[in-house]
């Protein structure tokens, strides 16, 4: 355990080295966040209700996107693919350290640092634009939101790890990561807009994929727009995908390491 703690410390220190890089990243996230807010404010105009969302609920959803993007979709494990490609992975395969835990540790640090900043940013924007968030009534909602978000964190981690592990075979990763990561994943996760504004036949299909459980369903929970039945179903599907990607990433990792050619040197 202590090795991963030490690794976490090291990762923290690295962020202080790349300060500018980090600020620019935060700036990009902030701009994205503001764009979404102003977009929805413009669409609502004077209306209070649209697509089944009250204005406060929609703005809460957008704040939720900023928040969940940081703790769920934020990830460093994409770098694993680069390590496979460049042969950098070699050094970790020589040491008594689990590569999957290595990357999980680094992901957690990344999420913690970004979380700190995103909370500040959200507070700032709420204060500047002077609007209030929708807060759930029941305590169970907070609890299930936290649990589903945690599941989402793990689900995303395993998906991301899986995408990186593919590099053992493709030796080229940006295409898959870009296609999945940006287009499919973020769109289908509901990281741009709530998915239920889409036609219902389409949403039914999307709900069967793992993606909406990363952002959309945690937010629906928060907004208390799910029935007990829907909630249970969301947990179940998310759990099945979680187990599936956990297994798949582990399985492919073992196969991939055998395929690894330790380039360079």
């Amino acid at each position: 355990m202590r090795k991963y703690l030490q690794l976490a410390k090291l990762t923290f220190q690295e962020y202080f080295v790349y300060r500018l890089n980090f600020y620019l990243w935060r700036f990009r996230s902030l701009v994205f966040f503001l764009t979404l807010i102003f977009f929805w404010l413009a669409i609502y105009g004077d209306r209070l209700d649209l697509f089944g969302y009250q204005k406060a609920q929609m703005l809460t959803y957008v704040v939720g996107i900023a928040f969940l993007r940081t703790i769920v979709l934020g990830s460093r494990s994409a770098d694993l693919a680069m390590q496979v490609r460049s042969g950098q992975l070699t050094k970790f395969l020589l040491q008594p350290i689990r590569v999957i835990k290595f990357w999980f540790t680094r992901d957690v640090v990344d999420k913690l640092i970004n979380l700190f900043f995103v909370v500040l940013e959200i507070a700032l924007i709420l204060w500047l634009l002077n609007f209030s968030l929708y807060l759930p009534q029941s305590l169970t909602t907070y609890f299930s939101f936290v649990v589903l978000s945690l599941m989402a964190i793990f689900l995303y981690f395993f998906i991301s790890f899986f995408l990186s592990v593919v590099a053992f075979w493709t030796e080229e990763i940006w295409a898959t990561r870009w296609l999945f990561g940006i287009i499919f994943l973020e769109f289908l996760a509901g990281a741009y807009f709530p998915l239920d504004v889409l036609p219902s036949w389409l949403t039914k299909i999307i709900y069967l994929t793992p993606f909406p459980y990363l952002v959309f369903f945690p937010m629906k929970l928060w907004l208390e727009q799910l029935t007990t039945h829907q909630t249970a179903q969301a947990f179940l599907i998310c759990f099945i995908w979680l187990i599936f990607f956990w297994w798949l990433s582990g399985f492919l990792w073992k196969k991939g390491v055998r395929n690894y050619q330790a380039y360079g040197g």
Partner: protein
Amino acid sequence: MEVIEVSHLRKNFSVFQKEPGLVGSFKSIFFRRYKQVKAVRDISFSIKEGELVGFIGPNGAGKTTTLKCLSGLLYPDGGSVSVLGFQPWQRQPEFQKQFSLVMGQKNQLWWDLPPLETFLLNKEIYDVPQDQFNKTLNELVKLLEVEDILKVQTRKLSLGQRMKCELIAALLHSPKVLFLDEPTIGLDVVMQKKIRDFIKEYNQKFKSTIILTSHYMGDVKELCKRVMIIDKGQLVFDGELAKVVKRYGQNKVISVVLAKEIGKEKLESIDGLREYLYPQATFLVKREKTSQKTAEILEKLPIADLNVEEPPIEEIIRELFTHKNYR
């Protein structure tokens, strides 16, 4: 006790072949040709505890591939490998805690942080107790004279400084088995000497088993009693370095100092002239013809001084790799 045992090791790679140019790239999207490269074909050897073995061969001979199989990076396609009683490719932590691989062209130090941070991380990764860590680190730092750079960002270090720190990072857990893949690559002669001395001392002090590959014969000459020569994935020689000279050194070098300057044609009339720069000239002659040639030279040329020597080991190896005349 045998620490490393390798028997009939084989390792192939399939390499994707791309035709040059844009058209080639385009073709390769739809149609790819793979070529089987036999990096290691049937190698067997064993190494005892405390031995320091030199592993030499021309580029692409299979040295690094063999070392990678020994350290568990590569999964062998055939044969068996045992290091410290473990099968390396299973990568058990108990095994990994007892060996290290240092690659001169790869770094394990964290690029953006000072070397000390990597050392501290390795301490935790290898479960090195605090007092042992302090003791080993102090010793290594003193031996390699790097006190003042431990807290400097790795990327700001010179190659030599970095190499020393790489060695420290690899040795903090006092590995019993050490694979050094060109540890002196790109270093100046002073630094090469220091690293060599250090390796020698480490080997004697800790009775560790070391395999060293290097393109500098100097490294091997100074450090290793036993050498293994590998070419095209096959072991062609395994034995004492001195025997390489006996077995492959078919020639002797006769070097002379001339008493007065003469034309090159005159020298060339004697077979085997290798170099002439007045007043020095050297001849390379067959071992068994040495005395006959010496007599001929003394008779034909105005000689001030004459010496018969063994050719340098570098030359014997170069000859060997060029003509691939392994016997």
